[in-house]
């Protein structure tokens, strides 16, 4: 479903702030893979997701989604293949617009937007059903501005927007990091449900090792712009935080010194 081939990206080339963020990155995701991504600060996790989404062009290498090389497509054209949820709950939705309007915009991702009405009556019914399944009481607030919702509710809406049209690939970029633990758990549970029900292929960046272990069928660890560990299948099911740390030391030859990853549980 996704193939990343020898991708390089360096920020601020030729300045003192030069940073090689992706250093010959390779990754192949199979259809239906739900892959969690962990790694220290600056390992290139978010950069990888941004490279896939086309926030900027990569320096070299290819990104292939569903057999099509999308490396040369601008962000808004790649959007038809992707569903994205961001770390900041403010990023994924338009605060000034109603819940229904936000969903309607997402429902037209990758389609031509003409002069017919922005939210159709038939759609509203569909949206209501979808929101009902979330069990957050949002189905009765469809005409509320999204700006009135809490961070967790906004993230739930963004999740629905990302998957309202089945994307080839779902990108979750630390999408629970800005939420309180209980809301984070709820949003993660929703993510799990949506991914399994729709049989989506997904990449989920997280700084929480436990979440990375308990969710998905595959786990990759990044360091210095490369994937240094790739665990899937039975091996992943048996994984614990302790032996993940052990594995990291084996592969990288150094101790994992990232408090954010170690302390959060």
């Amino acid at each position, binding site marked *: 479903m996704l193939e990343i081939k020898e991708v390089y990206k360096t920020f601020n080339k030729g300045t003192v702030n030069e940073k090689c963020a992706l250093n010959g990155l390779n990754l192949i995701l199979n259809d239906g893979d739900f892959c969690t991504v962990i790694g220290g600060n600056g390992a290139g996790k978010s950069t990888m997701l941004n490279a896939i*989404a086309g926030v900027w062009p990569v320096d070299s290498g290819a990104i292939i989604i569903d057999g099509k090389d999308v490396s040369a497509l601008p*962000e*808004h*054209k790649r*959007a*038809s293949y*992707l569903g*994205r949820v*961001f770390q900041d709950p*403010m*990023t*994924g*939705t*338009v*605060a*000034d*617009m109603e819940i229904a*309007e936000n969903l*309607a*915009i*997402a429902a*037209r*991702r*990758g*389609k031509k*937007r*003409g*002069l*017919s*009405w*922005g939210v159709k009556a038939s759609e509203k019914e569909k949206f209501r059903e979808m929101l009902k399944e979330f069990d957050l009481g949002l189905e009765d607030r469809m005409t509320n501005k999204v700006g009135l919702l809490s961070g967790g509710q906004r993230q739930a809406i963004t999740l629905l*927007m990302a998957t309202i049209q089945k994307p080839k690939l779902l990108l979750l970029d630390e999408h629970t990091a800005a939420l309180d633990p209980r809301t984070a758990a709820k949003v993660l549970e929703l993510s799990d449900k949506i991914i399994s029900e729709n049989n989506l292929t997904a990449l989920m960046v997280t700084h929480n090792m436990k979440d990375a272990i308990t969710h998905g069928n595959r786990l990759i660890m990044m360091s210095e712009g490369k994937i240094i560990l790739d665990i899937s299948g039975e091996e992943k099911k048996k994984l614990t935080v302790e032996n993940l740390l052990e594995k990291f030391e084996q592969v990288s030859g150094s101790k994992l010194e990232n408090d954010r990853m170690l302390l959060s549980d």
Partner: protein
Amino acid sequence: MDGIMSYFSSLDPMSFVTALPGNIAQGVIWGLMALGVFITYKLLNFADLSVDGSFATGGAVTAIMLINGVPVWIALIVAVLAGIAAGLVTGLLHTLLGIPDILAGILTQIALYSINLNIMGKSNLPISYRNYDLVISASSINKAIIIGLCIAAIVIIAMYWYFGTEQGSTIRSTGSNPAMSKAQGINISVAKVIALALSNGLVALSGSLFAQYQGFSDINMGRGAIVIGLAAVIIGQVLGEALFRKHMNFIIRLIFVIVGGILYYIAMGIVLWLKMPTDDTKLFTAVIVAIFLAVPYLQKKSKTSFKKLAKNNAKALNAEDNKNA
């Protein structure tokens, strides 16, 4: 003391009343211009200064076409098209060449000064209602108000419809959250260019009507237009929110832009009636806009501020001291 008394006795209430319809008519025409400013400033979140130029372009195109015997309706349409072209230029300067929004608008504005002079051939062209069939004219003010309001109603309905469509929604989402818009497959450059074109088309329509109303087109008629437009948008918004609070929907917001334009011109009428020198009207406009821009900010601040907290804490401390003593 005598001076003040004679100043007040020289003010004639009737002269204010007789000037009122004229103020309203001008307010409606400028309200249309303010609807254009509303598109960029409120919906697209883009401070577009090209409107000073495109307002005069609307007047210039209308005058030269009327003088060359073109029917007024065609002149009006061509004026709008010229405004749309001006908006396209600002949009392309910004999206294709990466020039920041304010600078892109200023460049178009300054370029339009020369272009408008070229269109008119000189700095002022008279188009008296005696010589031409006009859509709107100060010679019959009541009619001018009615026609102005009819055009405003059509424009408001068209805007309400357009910004409710799929395409119009992309402009609103681009203005409010460009990152989300891109992630949802919206080409935000296209959305910006469309919005700027529509906005400047509307501004040129207003400029065309204003030139007809006053009976001439002048190279300087657009000077400070952006500030008047902002004044109308902001006065309308503050008033609308005070009256309707949570029930303020999109169509009411649009209507209150026109109301804001009318109120602005009535305020100007009062200023002139008080015999303030006309040289100072722009200063007065700037002060009005500054006040109305500051009001929402100060209101918010009065609810929660460091100063207030310090005062309350000091008061509480005092009360405690008094109790202990």
